[in-house]
């Protein structure tokens, strides 16, 4: 276990999440992708904290990231609901009226 290893795993999680965010049509699935990206960030933050700067503020960072993830997801559900209510869809591809 080393910093490099942790970071590579984090990068993999991040990349997988990015794939999901880019490829999924259903809003909730996109959100899952984003969550995976946050997952990667979390892991990276934890790795950085332990291997490079084990100060208390690093733990606060983790906490903030967790909180951010939570609130963003909450908003995601709300937006998905809104979309569903107003447009009867849960897919991003069904919301492409505004362009150019």
């Amino acid at each position, binding site marked *: 276990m080393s910093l490099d290893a942790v970071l590579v795993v984090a990068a993999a999680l991040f990349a997988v999440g990015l794939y999901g965010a880019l490829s999924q049509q259903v809003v909730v699935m996109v959100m899952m992708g984003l969550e995976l990206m946050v997952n990667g960030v979390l892991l990276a933050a934890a790795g950085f904290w332990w291997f490079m700067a084990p100060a208390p503020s690093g733990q606060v960072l983790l906490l903030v990231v967790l909180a951010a993830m939570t609130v963003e997801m909450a908003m995601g559900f709300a937006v998905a609901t*809104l979309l569903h209510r107003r447009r009867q869809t849960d897919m991003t591809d069904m*919301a492409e*009226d505004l362009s150019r």
Partner: protein
Amino acid sequence: MEASMRMLPALLLPEIIVFIGALAVLLGGSFLPRRRQWIARIVAALALLAATAAAVSAMFEPAQTAFSGTFAVDTATGMARIVTAVATLLVLGVASGEIAASPRESDTYALLLFAATGVMVLAGASDLLVLIAGFLLASIPLYGIVGLAGGRSGAEAALKTYLMGALSGILLMLGVTVLYALAGGPGYALLGETLPDAPGAAVGAGVLGVLAGLLFKAGGVPFHFWVPDASQGTGGTAATFLTTVPKVGALVAVYRLVDTVSTGEDTLLFVAAILATASMFLGNLAAFWQTDPRRLLGWSTVAQVGFLLVPVAAAGRSGLALPSLLFYLAAYAVTNVAAFAVTAALPRHQELAAYRGLVRARPGLALALLVALLGLVGTPPLAVFVGKLTTATAAWDGGYGWLALAVMLNSLLSLFYYLRWFAPVFARPHQGAMGFPQPGGAASWPAATAGVAAVASLALGLLAGPLWAALEGPLAM
């Protein structure tokens, strides 16, 4: 050191006032009958006025930091607070016509105030963690504001805003994580000390990640995509707000970050210059053939972010950089509000061509629009002119002469599409064209707001001198 360790919560008085105002509007609003929600509006306005007063009085204090150096209270923060509060106040003016007595009126005001609080926090943050928190506080209510209005397209706008925001928030956190690791802590003072010795590539990744989040808030390239869509899709109030207020905090934050990180190394300045150029060109060119006035304005704000990023490229190199940024922010805010307010006053006119002959039916509104658009072009002596002049000067002074050239070139490009809008306004109306609503009624609030903002835009330009004197102060670290 001792001073910076203290909490000094009183220094955050404006933020606290706005937040408490938001809570008051939220809770009080739930007891108000639908048609008497104007009371909530008044409460919100009072909170903003009080915050403005507090911010102004704080401007007379020397620059200092609060909460152990995590929040800077200096000229930049002060000016950002004032602009945020005043611009939000003007947005309330627009809202008074558009969403008065709608079921979500008071909720919207509460969200506006929450977001304004977040913008202020963003502007003053001198700690990466506070920056994240401020980003969230500024973003999350914004999704609500965008989604509340606009029906079908409003939902789409909210979705796009949300997804862009979530992604950029993640990138922001990634960047913060990297920078934290490199510096060993999230405080700006620490960043400034340690980053110059850190591996350049890692610093780059971190800084660009943080910039990604801030650019989303500012609506700059490459995180601008949501801006035109949201401006067009949502309601007038929300469009006015989202193109005006978040930029204030975001750009001050960008400046703070760049100023902190770029000591002794100018890659970041160059990046800022590139981003500025990209925003200017993309925003202006894309605005060329828009037919929806609000979408056009949305693109124009993308371009304006480019102009606003110009002084960032001169951070630390020119004494003009910070004052010109702050001045431009103030000028931009009032001018942009004026333009959006005109569209809010004519909600049914969603084509540029529909504005034909406006000057005969509504000369006042036409004049306000003219001032706003000429202002955005940068015609003297309107305020944005002074902003453009000083930012371009700062860029040149800071060693980026070509950026000044880009500013001029883009002003020319922008003239073209603004002309596409206001040329019909002054032309003879076609037979059988859609008429214009008579003055009065609900739409008189946005019209009046447009007038006030236009006058403010002119006054800011003419009275640039005294204001400028107030802007020349160092950043607190």
